[in-house]
């Protein structure tokens, strides 16, 4: 991609490295934009943080740590265990069904602010019925692959 001599705008692209040509340009664009963003957005913002007018995102904000990290852990565990359990029963979708029931129930419990008997029972019914319904519709009626 070196410029040839006859015109400053001429470009020739070597086929062997043509997969890198456009990404290379995008890297430069990103780098320039990043510097501009730093200068015009991040620097004034940090100055405002220093003066105590604004709070840093993520670090300086209040957050419901239990529910946030709980959600992350539950989702990761759900995704991981789905394929683990699914491998015991290949091509049945049981992995999806079993882990979904557990996941739905735990996540519902975590998101409740007050746990009354009635709420827990509703969540339990929801956790059993919804994945079963999804499993029947997708795996049995539509023949869609599930883990």
């Amino acid at each position, binding site marked *: 991609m070196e410029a040839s001599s006859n*015109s400053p*705008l*001429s*470009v*020739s*692209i070597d*086929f*062997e490295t*043509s*997969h*890198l040509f*456009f*990404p290379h340009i*995008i*890297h430069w*664009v*990103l780098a320039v*934009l*990043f510097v*501009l*963003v730093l200068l*015009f*957005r991040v620097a004034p913002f940090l100055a405002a943080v220093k003066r105590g007018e604004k709070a840093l*995102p*993520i670090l300086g904000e209040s*957050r*419901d740590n239990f*529910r*946030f990290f*709980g*959600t*992350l852990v539950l*989702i*990761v565990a*759900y*995704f991981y265990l*789905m*394929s683990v359990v699914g491998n015991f029963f290949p091509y049945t979708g049981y992995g*999806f069904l079993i882990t979904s029931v557990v*996941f*739905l129930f735990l*996540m*519902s*419990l*975590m*998101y409740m*602010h007050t746990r009354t008997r009635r*709420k827990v029972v509703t969540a339990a019914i*929801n*956790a059993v019925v*919804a*994945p079963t319904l*999804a499993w029947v519709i*997708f795996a049995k009626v*539509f*023949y*869609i*692959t*599930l*883990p």
Partner: protein
Amino acid sequence: MMDILSQLDFTFFLLASIGTLIGIIFGAIPGMTATMAVAVCLPLTYALGLEHGLSLLLGLYVGGISGGMVPAVLLNIPGTPSSITTTFDGYPMAQKGEGERALRVCVVASLVGGLISAAVLFLFAPLLAEFSIKFSYVEKFLIILLALTVIASMSNNMLVGIFSGAIGVWLSLIGTYSLSDGGNGNTRLMFDFMEPYLFEGFSLLPVLIGIFGISTILLEAESGVKSSLTGQKIKIGKEGGFSLSIFKGRLTNLVRSSFIGTFVGMLPGVGGSAASVLAYTQEKNLSRDSSEMGKGAPQGLIASESANNALTGGALIPLLSLGIPGDSTTAVLIGAFTLQGIQVGPLFIPENTDTWYIMMVALVAANIVMFLLMFYAIKYIARVVLVPKYLLYPLIVMMCVVGAYAINYGIMFDVWTLMIFGVLGYLVQKVGLEVAPLIIGFILGSSAEVYFVKSLESFGTLSIFFTKSPIAVVLWGLIAASVIFSIVMGLKSRTRRQLEMSQ
């Protein structure tokens, strides 16, 4: 023509109705949008045929945009960003006990907005497609560049918008430079160990479902999944009070707002809130009796709701004629179309005339179903606003998994893509980058590469982007105009802010 009629069976209209109903429910629940409705319900379309899938998807789209009015009027919370201006007049009316009347005004306005934009779509999309069919790679690249600049200039801050768009383009380049596009089939932007997973790059739909589904859940979890609505009573107000005479003398408003909505919808990446805010302020500036607006005047509802429903037809215009999504919902639709084997672009309408007519029927049907459901059953629909989030959110995660896993017939990495982009979408929104330009950049990035590299390979000079055709020059003019527009707007708001500071 008979072929088309035979496709329009009972199931077709049933699916359009189901889609609209689910869409309304999603739209009505604050924090959930039409985009999410389409993303979460995607797996339902995997097993459906093309026509049936389309009717379901368009129903979801129309319903999702419309549903936002319900909490906007009843609880002063916009159900979707585009119903923000509905709260200004809707909530005061609901407090006066006129909730049902307000909602019915909204429903009628929505129907008119939806139908006008559908008509514009029907007339305008084929023309634009015919025009763009002659485009070579050079013009196609410039169109994408224009789309990205317009998105960026409509963002809160142009620099941040462009930066977000460029990140989206970068993400789309991960994987091979595909042989089928005339590339050399080599991979880039990754380490060797990632090759088995990322050879084809990230799949579009898991990326979209992750960004719109999972990251919303994460944002909600962070704020503690507050059930601020429990204990709140929904006051729908007394029966009746609605008659079409409310619309007397409001025809100009109705039509103007619908066209504003359609036009804003056409601009790529511009969210729904821009359309309704613009229509609302126009009505406020131009109407003779705007003093009541903001205190419960139906004319505000008319402007807001006709504009936001007109988005639907507008956003489909660039999608169907150029292959460029007009907003984030159509971005998900593009994925769903690809799944059904439809390549959207200039050739779509001429080559798939039947499908095109069927889509129009589905769009109109969805609008009518929306009207019937919401006009007569609004009381019952209004209750879904109170469905507890602790039941809803786990369900959404589950549906996201089904959608991602099944898309490529059972690839677990697609499910992990959900997680990666869920977290990424969360971080992006946290640090103040913009999701819409990023997504559009991601969708258009790989075609931009192909058009750009092919143009240079065949012409060998960068000047071709300026000299190829008069259209290229016009496109550059438009690109410059959108950049200048955004800079001027930025300067204006800065001086205004400084004025306010000094006062």
